[in-house]
Each structure stands twice: as structure tokens, then as C-alpha cells.
């Protein structure tokens, strides 16, 4: 099915946790002009899933998240979390939330900001302090704990934002552009953290421009544009063999054998070759042939991931 699925076709039989039903949001100005930020958006997110939300700037991702947290009310349709209105759910259970813009009072100190949030999260003083120490360690904030929020760099602020989202053992996590401002080391660390957070009873939403990140972390990705759900893509490659795909092969030995197995291979230099195949089967049999001829294959990488391809088809070039 080429990686495209609809909510009703989702493979998991788990219970639905987040339910967007025909949701629309229109902003109206005092002068009477109106802007439709989200239109007829329907999607169900089951328990245990990591759902990515991708879309260009202004596609409606943040508005959707604001409605999910109960910060905004839909103009049409409904959003339910475990059968409750978003605000009711959040007030009862809380949601681990990292917003796109990390807004914490700049006069607060990093550590005390986390202790405050821990208090609001329902932790006792001792529980809160222990959890804060744990997160400060996990997110490499030890040397910044006494600094005022306004003195933190963008990356450290982002990590502080992530720390407050992880304070509680929440069933739902919503991460809006979570790696924005993080360096490559912390981006990788973030991926490890999210992978460890995956649990059968936990649902995670990640909104990001970074398709590679969503491809690695998410089970499915909802691609939205102009406020509309364009398609939902399963990220598993095995389910989504493309019709024609370009791959980049890197060889460690047997460079002169490449054209025998891939007659149309293009030399990209430094032992790398671009090849086009009609199917995964064709790729595998040509690779087997190449290896049999004595070549040593170091890596095979698709030129575009399934998600990138779907994104391009849905909204044009990714940003």
C-alpha cells in the first residue's frame, strides 16, 4: 500500500487515545477577516503509537497541538482524549508537553523552574527534587542548574523545556519541534531518550520539520498542509516498497564490478554510486550479484526516505 494509510486502516488494534473528529479552526480578526488554520481534520491516535506530524510552516501543526491541549477550542468538530475534552483530560492527568517556543519566565533559575513545574505536576517536595536531579543529569544541565533561564543558550533552554515535559510519568507526550536548537550530539541523545520513552501504554506526538527524525522515531506520520490532513504515512520501509527508487551505494572494494550488476549506475565519486531500481526485489538480487562478483558493499541508502517522497508528493519540496 506504498506507505499511505488512513486512520481507519491503522494496523494496531490498541484503543484510541486521541481522537480528532472533523476538526476545524478559523481565526477571525476584529475587522471581520478570517483565516482557516485547520480544516476537516480527522485522525485517531492509538495507545502506544509514536505519531509524527509533518508540514510546512503555517500548515496548522501548532494550532492542532493547541487544540489537543485545550488551549484553543475548535471552531468545528471535536477533539477527545480518552473520551474527555482536552482541557478536562489535562487537568486530571497532565500531558508532557514541549512547545515549539520554550517560554519559561527568564527570571527563574533553571533548577527552581523545574521544581516549580514538579510542584504543579503533583510531586511532593522530595519526589520533585529527586526527579529534577535525575533529569538535570540526563539532559546535561548540571552546570547550568543555578543559571537564570535568560542566561541559557538556545540548546540548553530546549533541554530545560524537554526536562519539564518529562517530569511526570505521563501517558501522553507532545513534542513540538523538539530538536530545534539542539546540536547533533544532543539531537542523537534526544532520539535515544524518545526511543526509551516508547511504551505500550504511552502515546507520543512529535511535530517536526525534520523528516529524517520522524522517519527514525515515528510509527506513522500525518502530513498536513494548509490546515488539511494530506495523508498518513507508515514509516516502516518493508511495507512501502517504492515503484522506482534511487539508492546510493558505497563500496569498500570491487569498484570495477558495479556496472556488471547495475548497468546504469552513476559514479558519484569516492566509491559511491547512484543506482535506480524498480523494486526492493530488484535491488536485492542486483546486490547479491555484486557481492558474488567480489564487491564489498559498505552501505545502501535510499536517496529519499519513504517519508520524504510522500512529503514531496503531498506538499512539494521539504524545507
Amino acid at each position: 500500500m506504498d506507505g499511505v494509510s488512513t486512520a481507519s486502516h491503522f494496523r494496531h488494534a490498541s484503543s484510541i487515545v486521541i481522537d480528532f473528529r472533523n476538526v476545524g479552526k478559523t481565526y477571525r480578526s476584529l475587522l471581520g477577516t478570517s483565516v482557516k488554520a485547520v480544516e476537516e481534520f480527522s485522525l485517531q491516535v492509538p495507545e502506544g503509537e509514536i505519531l509524527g506530524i509533518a508540514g510546512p510552516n503555517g500548515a496548522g501543526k501548532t494550532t492542532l497541538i493547541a487544540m489537543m491541549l485545550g488551549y484553543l477550542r475548535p471552531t468545528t468538530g471535536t477533539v477527545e482524549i480518552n473520551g474527555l475534552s482536552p482541557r478536562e483530560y489535562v487537568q486530571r492527568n497532565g500531558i508532557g508537553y514541549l512547545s515549539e517556543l520554550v517560554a519559561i519566565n527568564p527570571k527563574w533559575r533553571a533548577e527552581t523552574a523545574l521544581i516549580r513545574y514538579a510542584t504543579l505536576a503533583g510531586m511532593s517536595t522530595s519526589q520533585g527534587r529527586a526527579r529534577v536531579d535525575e533529569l538535570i543529569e540526563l539532559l546535561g544541565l548540571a552546570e547550568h542548574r543555578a543559571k537564570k533561564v535568560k542566561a541559557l543558550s538556545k540548546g540548553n533552554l530546549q533541554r530545560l523545556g524537554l526536562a519539564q515535559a518529562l517530569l511526570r510519568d505521563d501517558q501522553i507526550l507532545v513534542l513540538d519541534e523538539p530538536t530545534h536548537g539542539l546540536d547533533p550530539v544532543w539531537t542523537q541523545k534526544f532520539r535515544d531518550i524518545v526511543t526509551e520513552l516508547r511504551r505500550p501504554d504511552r502515546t507520543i506526538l512529535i511535530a517536526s520539520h525534520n523528516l529524517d527524525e520522524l522517519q527514525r522515531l515515528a510509527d506513522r506520520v500525518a502530513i498536513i498542509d494548509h490546515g488539511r490532513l494530506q495523508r498518513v504515512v507508515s514509516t516502516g520501509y518493508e511495507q512501502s516498497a517504492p515503484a522506482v527508487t534511487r539508492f546510493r551505494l558505497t563500496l569498500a572494494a570491487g569498484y570495477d564490478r558495479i556496472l556488471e550488476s547495475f548497468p546504469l549506475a552513476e559514479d558519484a565519486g569516492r566509491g559511491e554510486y547512484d543506482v535506480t531500481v524498480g523494486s526492493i526485489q530488484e535491488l536485492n538480487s542486483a546486490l547479491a550479484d555484486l557481492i558474488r562478483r567480489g564487491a564489498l558493499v559498505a552501505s545502501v541508502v535510499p536517496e529519499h526516505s519513504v517519508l520524504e517522497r510522500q512529503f514531496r508528493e503531498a506538499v512539494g519540496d521539504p524545507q
Partner: protein
Amino acid sequence: MSRGRLGQYTLWQFRDFVVERGIAIVLIGLMLGYVLIEPLRRALGPAFSIDAKSPGRPVLVMVSSSIVSLAVLIALNGIVSTDRKMGYYRFLFAKPVSPFVYYAQLFFVYMAGVLASMLVLSGLLHWVVPSFSIFHFLLYTAVVFVAMGGIGFFISVATRFDWLTLAAVWLGSRILRDIYGEKPGFLSKLVQVLPPVHKLNDLATDIIANGTAVASDVVWLMAYGAVFFVLGLLLLRYGPLAD
């Protein structure tokens, strides 16, 4: 996992009040008091008191009541709107707490903060003018906080420009009542629904200087503020947090 410990969070809210507003209120109060009261006290000597016959009485009432109004304005400035403008609400209310309860609590914490600030200032004033009653002054502060603060709270929920709007509403009501209040006709009836700021002058003299007040005036002022405070809470309960 339990719900948010809002009661415990009161200490953080009070700390914020002291650091961000309380110190400023006390310093401004001290400055105004020193500049406006001290020269007169020096000139009049022992004759300067809150007693009815003292020439210092109108000045004491005017200055102390102005400090209260200013303190309430400073305290209520951005009580809700700042969190919304700056986006602080996003992390606060992703936790299991109700914005409705959070801000209701904040209102009363700030009221306690303003009363504490006024306690400090009135304590100093009582020290230099022994006839000045700390208790009467705090009573007046509480009435003004509910009356003016309730409206300020509502405006802070409803608009981003709360300080300016509250000042405009306060001044506008005063001017419109002065112009139309005594004239016959529809407009004089209409201005009756405006905030009853015109009652504050008499109330200041009555409570601060005499320790008495016209009950209906107190009830009218406090009820007016309380209604707006409740309207603000309802707006928080049923309105969106984000713009």
C-alpha cells in the same frame, strides 16, 4: 499520579509577588510618603495628625489612599495577561492544574501581598504619625483591592493591555460621572453602571481617618469588583487560553 499541588505552589506565587511587585510597591510608597508627607509633618510638628481638626488630615488621606490605588494597579498588572502574552501558560497548564483555580489563588496571594506591603508602609506611617490607624488603613486596602482588583483581574483575562485599560476605565468612569452623573436623562442612568470610583474619595476619608463607612457604599464597591472577578474566572473557565 496525583493532581498538581496548587496549595504548595502558593509559596512560589508569594515569592514572585515579593520579588517582582512587593519591593517596588514598598519603595514607591516610601518615596511618595517621604516626598509628600514628611515636609508637612516637619512644618506642623505635633499638630500633624489624622484627627479631624488637623490640617494634615486631608494630605494623609489623599497620599495614603493614592498609594493603595497605585499598589493595586502594580499588583494586578499582567496578573493573567503576562502569562498569555509571553506564552508561559503553555508549560504551566500542561500540568494537571486548572487555570481557573491557579489564577483565583494568584489573585488572593497578591491580595495578601498588597496587604503585607501596606502593613509595612502603614507601620512606618504610624511610627511617625501615631494617630494613623494601621487597621483602618488595611481595611481600606482590602476594600479597594476587591473593588479595583476585581475589575483589573477581569481586564487582564480579557485583554493583553490590562494596565492601560484599567487606568482608562478608572479615569473614564470618573470623568463621565463628573460630566453626566448629576444631569437628568438617559446618560446619567447609564453612567451609574460604570465602576463606582467616585465613592472612593469619601470612603478613604471615612475608613482611613474615621474608621467608619457607609455600608451601602462598601457593599456596592466590593460587589462591583467581585462580580468582575467572577466574570474573569468564568472567562478563564470557558474561554481559550491561547489567542
